[in-house]
């Protein structure tokens, strides 16, 4: 990554005072693995990320060194088998890990979501054994950074209309087209790219950095997910060996299968952002004195806090149930859509309420609120927009497609 004016970011000495909130004893629904995983990630975040995140976000820089830390703690593909660089854990463990990462920052969670669910997962699920052995251990250990290219400048919610395409050239495909809004792309070693074959079917290819005709310029000027790097993928007659095609999937169900995984993680992750806003608002409201008493004593503040913890609790139960379904292999894409949509929106609403409770302080980077709020605008849109997920539920309950 090239940055004009590189300044060194050091750890601030401000401590992360986040405390655990479990209003309904949801912890009792979790296993030892889940609790240990969650606490480990929380400790790591408090030590390594909380002290630097505000600065990275403010400077719109990606803390690239954290890929190694995320790998060491085991945040990449925790539910993939150990043999392939995963953690051999269940889906709820994956969920609580995402929650703890997003408790700190949605950009941090995005780094892990993309690497685990959108890059490692398709290679594991749709790849050949050689591809698995070639890429997965390196992705799991953070040696390789990956990205996922589906969205295009003219095709966001409607990926089936994609223009990126491949033409058969013997032992390789010639890839042309471009992808937009790709998390991690400028720093990625490999990209899982979805493109149309001459027969119109969508296939997945592993494109490696350095392949001739392949570039990944950075997108600047984001007011959201500022600590996560986003870019384009540009393909100009890139010769991709056929050995790099994911052999075991064709059609839109390939990328959608990955998105289901990642959306599942977001349904959990968003709770983390909400909890952080609630935690900060609760503490601030007890410490901030106006009219001679803590503002937490005013009914209007209590209404906000009470509604926040109610919504968080509902979201926790939704995520937990979704996790149980996912462990049984029974979480449908529509059920995942409902949880993603509900929980992200809930988190964004809570960020806005929490911002009010913090008064003027709420707009500064003394508190994490505005950062979460701005991040959540992306989370509301990526991996299927808020409205698209609603239409998925609508289609599921009516049997009628309102997309087209």
């Amino acid at each position, binding site marked *: 990554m090239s940055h004009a004016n590189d300044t060194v970011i050091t750890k601030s000495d401000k401590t992360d005072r986040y405390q655990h909130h479990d209003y309904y004893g949801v912890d009792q629904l979790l296993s030892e693995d889940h609790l*240990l*995983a969650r606490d480990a990630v929380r400790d790591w975040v408090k030590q390594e990320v909380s002290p630097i995140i505000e600065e990275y976000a403010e400077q719109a820089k990606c803390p690239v060194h954290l890929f190694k830390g995320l790998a060491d703690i085991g945040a990449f593909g925790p539910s993939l088998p150990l043999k392939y660089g995963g953690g*051999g854990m269940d889906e709820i463990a994956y969920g609580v890990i995402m929650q703890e990462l997003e408790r700190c920052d949605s950009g941090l969670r995005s780094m892990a979501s993309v690497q685990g669910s959108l890059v490692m997962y398709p290679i594991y699920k749709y790849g050949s054994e050689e591809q698995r052995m070639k890429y997965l251990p390196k992705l799991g250990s953070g040696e390789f950074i990956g990205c996922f290219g589906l969205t295009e400048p003219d095709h966001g919610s409607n990926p089936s209309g994609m223009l990126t395409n491949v033409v058969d050239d013997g032992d390789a495909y010639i890839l042309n087209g471009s992808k937009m809004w790709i998390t991690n792309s400028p720093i990625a070693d490999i990209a899982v790219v979805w493109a149309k074959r001459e027969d119109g079917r969508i296939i997945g290819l592993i494109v490696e950095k350095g392949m001739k005709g392949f570039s990944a310029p950075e997108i600047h000027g984001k007011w959201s997910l500022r600590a996560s790097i986003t870019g384009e993928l540009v393909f100009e007659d890139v010769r991709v060996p056929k050995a790099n095609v994911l052999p075991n999937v064709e059609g839109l169900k390939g990328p959608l299968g990955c998105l289901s995984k990642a959306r599942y993680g977001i349904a959990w992750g968003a709770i983390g952002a909400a909890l952080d806003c609630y935690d900060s608002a609760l503490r601030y409201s007890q410490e901030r004195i106006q009219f001679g008493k803590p503002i937490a004593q005013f009914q209007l503040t209590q209404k906000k806090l009470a509604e926040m913890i109610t919504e968080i609790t509902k979201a926790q139960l939704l995520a937990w149930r979704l996790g149980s379904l996912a462990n049984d292999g029974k979480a449908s894409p529509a059920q995942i859509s409902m949880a993603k949509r509900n929980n992200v929106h809930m988190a964004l609403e809570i960020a806005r309420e929490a911002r009010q409770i913090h008064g003027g302080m709420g707009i500064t980077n003394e508190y994490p609120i505005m950062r979460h709020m701005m991040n959540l605008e992306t989370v509301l849109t990526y991996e299927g927009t808020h409205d698209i997920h609603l239409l998925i539920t609508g289609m599921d309950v009516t049997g009628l497609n309102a997309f087209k």
Partner: protein
Amino acid sequence: MKLLVCISKTPDTTAKISFKDDNTQFNGDGVNFILNPYDEWYALVRAIELKEQKGGTVTVINVGDSSNDIIIRKALAIGADEAVRVDQPAKSSIDTAKQIAEYAKSQSFDVIFLGKETIDYNGAEVGAMVAELLELPYVSFASNMDSSAEHFVLTRDIEGGVEEIKLNAPFVVSAAKGMAEQRIPNMRGIMMAKRKPLNVIPGIETSSHTGVKSFTLPAEKDGVKMIDPDNMDELVRLLKEEAKVL
């Protein structure tokens, strides 16, 4: 080297403290419990480092019921090889020490590690008692362990300086800050910990000579009084009459 680390469970530092049974028992309802930080960050990690340096095994021991298994799992996830849980609630320092000594005496450990204290009762008693029961040398509050030679050199921070103690294994040591640095378990460690042995053994009968009469919470702190920087007389008056420090 055969290494033993004594670990205990304590309330999280943010826990709300209350008592039950006529103020003779800590009320653990709704409290989040953790592995005692001195045991985890310093004793356990230093033991693991020693094993990494010299080979051997790290065993952790805990006296308590099955609700303690999660903190034991954490110790295994961080890198201990096996665990022993003496299956009865920890009653007192001397009882805990007797249970640990009973297990340790048949095992000939080279070094027995403990944290310098638990962060709940801050007793700092068990280490000395274990050492005495096993008739082993004891170094308390060690902030550094030099294990580069055949013998060990332990450092203790004392008032106005440091004390260095040279000794040979076997011995008992309680670890203070500085001994090692926290190691956060990773997902692999957490999953591997499931496959490591956790042996549950019965406790022995012990007699107790002490008991808790009652616990009382400290008086609530008064709010901070702000005094105008120009009003020195008021400051002096308050220090004299209210704080009674002058």
